[in-house]
């Protein structure tokens, strides 16, 4: 058993071991999460035999803002930081989008979307610059920007309101019609899932393969070593936070898309994002893990919640169970790292 991403960057033992065990070693944690998800899914079907494609679609729609929040947190955590302002950033981008689109034409939304995404990117970059320039610990800087962004969101809209363009709302409802596929399979491909995969892949895959992505991992794993190997530490850190802002803006848009309005009070996304990042096998402290694990983890967490609701368990107990799962998983992960370090 290996803790996530432990061997992520050790390419040479590929030649020695066979490909399968290598894959399992590298992706063991993520594979385990997948298995967990499937098991949970089967349990869900057992609890509620009628649980079908439509329910899966609504699960994905509910996951969407969480998934983007998790992606935002993941990038920063891999770079060795933490971003407490994720939820506030989502609130701000969501209200901005909703208030710009309210009363505007459908075409205007074509301008709103890139504008909001750019806003997230820039605000994230400002987060990064503040950390680099002031040399104040990231946790304090993002704590301060949390207040600032929350305040800005309240200035944009002081109560939930605004509107979303119809085509944006349509973007995440329904399924993807793929010609040649039977309807039965088609129904299990919600548009929201496709949107999530496309948005994350477009940014993450090129990043992961680029020099910049490697630099982000490098500064997360050892800032000094990265600096001495000629990695532009300050620039990389700023870009990591900017990407986090971009993902958070996607999350804000997803919120507006799924609710049709914008709400200035941030949801529970900060806590959820940190939990899913840890559960997904990204080491707090940086340099390890990937994006896939946290995304699967967030699906697992939401499905657990669905199951608890289906079992008609008191929703208040759900919070206890979720917290207990989070703590237990993290303890287990830490325990395994400790064991493997000793042996």
């Amino acid at each position, binding site marked *: 058993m290996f803790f996530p991403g432990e061997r992520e960057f050790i390419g040479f033992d590929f030649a020695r071991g066979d490909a399968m065990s290598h894959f399992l070693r590298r992706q063991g944690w993520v594979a385990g999460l997948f298995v967990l998800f499937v098991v949970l899914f089967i349990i869900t079907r057992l609890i509620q035999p009628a649980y079908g494609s439509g329910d899966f679609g609504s699960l994905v729609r509910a996951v969407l803002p969480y998934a983007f929040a998790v992606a935002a947190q993941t990038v920063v955590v891999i770079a060795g930081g*933490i971003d407490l302002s994720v939820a506030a950033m989502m609130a701000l981008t969501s209200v901005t989008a909703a208030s710009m689109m309210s009363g505007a034409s459908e075409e205007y939304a074509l301008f709103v979307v890139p504008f909001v995404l750019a806003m997230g990117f820039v605000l994230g970059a400002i987060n990064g610059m*503040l950390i680099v320039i*002031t*040399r*104040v*610990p990231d*946790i*304090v*800087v993002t*704590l*301060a*920007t*949390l*207040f*600032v962004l*929350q*305040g*800005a*969101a*309240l*200035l*944009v809209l*002081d109560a939930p309101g605004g509107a979303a363009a119809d085509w944006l709302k349509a973007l995440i409802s329904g399924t993807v019609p793929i010609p040649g596929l039977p309807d039965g399979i088609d129904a299990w491909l919600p548009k929201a899932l496709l949107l999530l995969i496309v948005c994350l892949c477009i940014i993450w895959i090129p990043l992961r393969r680029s020099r910049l992505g490697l630099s982000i991992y490098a500064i997360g794993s050892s800032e000094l070593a990265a600096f001495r190997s000629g990695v532009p530490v300050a620039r990389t850190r700023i870009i990591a936070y900017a990407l986090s802002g971009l993902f958070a803006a996607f999350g804000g848009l997803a919120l507006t898309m799924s609710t049709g309005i914008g709400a*200035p009070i941030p949801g529970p996304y900060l*806590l959820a994002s*940190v*939990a899913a990042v*840890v559960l997904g096998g990204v080491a*707090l*402290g940086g340099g390890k893990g990937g994006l896939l694990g946290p995304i699967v983890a967030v699906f697992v967490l939401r499905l657990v919640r669905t199951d608890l609701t289906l079992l008609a368990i*008191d929703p*208040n*107990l*759900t*919070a*206890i*169970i*979720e*917290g*207990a799962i*989070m*703590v237990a998983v*993290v*303890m287990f992960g*830490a*325990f395994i*790292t*400790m064991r493997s370090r000793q042996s």
Partner: protein
Amino acid sequence: MSTTAIQPVPFGRRVKRFMADRPLIPLIILLIILVVILQILRPGIVNERWIANTIKFAIPLAILAGCQTMTMLTGGIDLSIGTVATMSAFIMATQVVNQDPAVAFLLAMMPAVLIGLVNGIGVGVFRVHPLIMTLGTSLIGTGCLQVYQRTVIASGARIPDFLAWLGTGLTYGVPNALLLFVPLAALIVFTLSRTGFGRLLYAVGDNERATRLSGVQYWQVITALYVISSVLAGITGLLYIGLIKAPSLSLAEPLVLPSVAAAVIGGTSIFGGRGGYTGTIIGALILTVLTTLLTILQMPEGARRILFGLIVLFVTAAYLRIVEER
């Protein structure tokens, strides 16, 4: 040769060095500046009553920031204090209806000890990141509190007279809460600077490996620390319910992030090993005065939050710059 020696050091640098040697002085100056601004904006507001009020509201924040200071000295953080304070306050207010106050007090402190113990074991034995561990336990705590609320919804809540007296009462114009706070603060300062336990906290935060190699039982120190932090938070909750007088499920939650800010403004390093409690107390006072100032400016809530965030960031950055350039 001697000409360089007698050349006077530039005044600016001398001031800077003076402040760097005594990091409390810039903080006190900032506090005074804030009070002066307040007095200019609203002449006559700074009187005895205002001072007593400010102190009353600063004390819960200062104690919670004390929890934060101690955990931060070891390189940790305790985000469960808000939940712990809320839990003990809520349990106290609901249990005192049917129980003896002493029993209610013991019941109220139970979750605090328990959460502290779980935090300490998670961080000290299993080596979980303190941020995650305390966030997780606070999630569990909030859930438990919600379930608990269901069971006592019929019995109602009452604030014990003693807590109301302690939280809001004045004796000769001096807040009664100081009766609790002054010994507590003295104890924390004494523990941190004069006892073995305090030195261990600094040592663990400074260089954990070296501390362990010199024979310190890391997990014992950490477990004790988180239990102490939780118990302090529980006591704060009791004090705070006496001040606010309205038990709710998110009573002390708004104090968590400011408590981190107060400790950081007060000069405690979030990476551990550096800092102290006196700075934190002044940090808590600064934040309380700042909140009053922003309320008095009658800005919209949004603008107030923006300013609060910016000022916290600016103060921390400026303070780090002054202290680090030795």
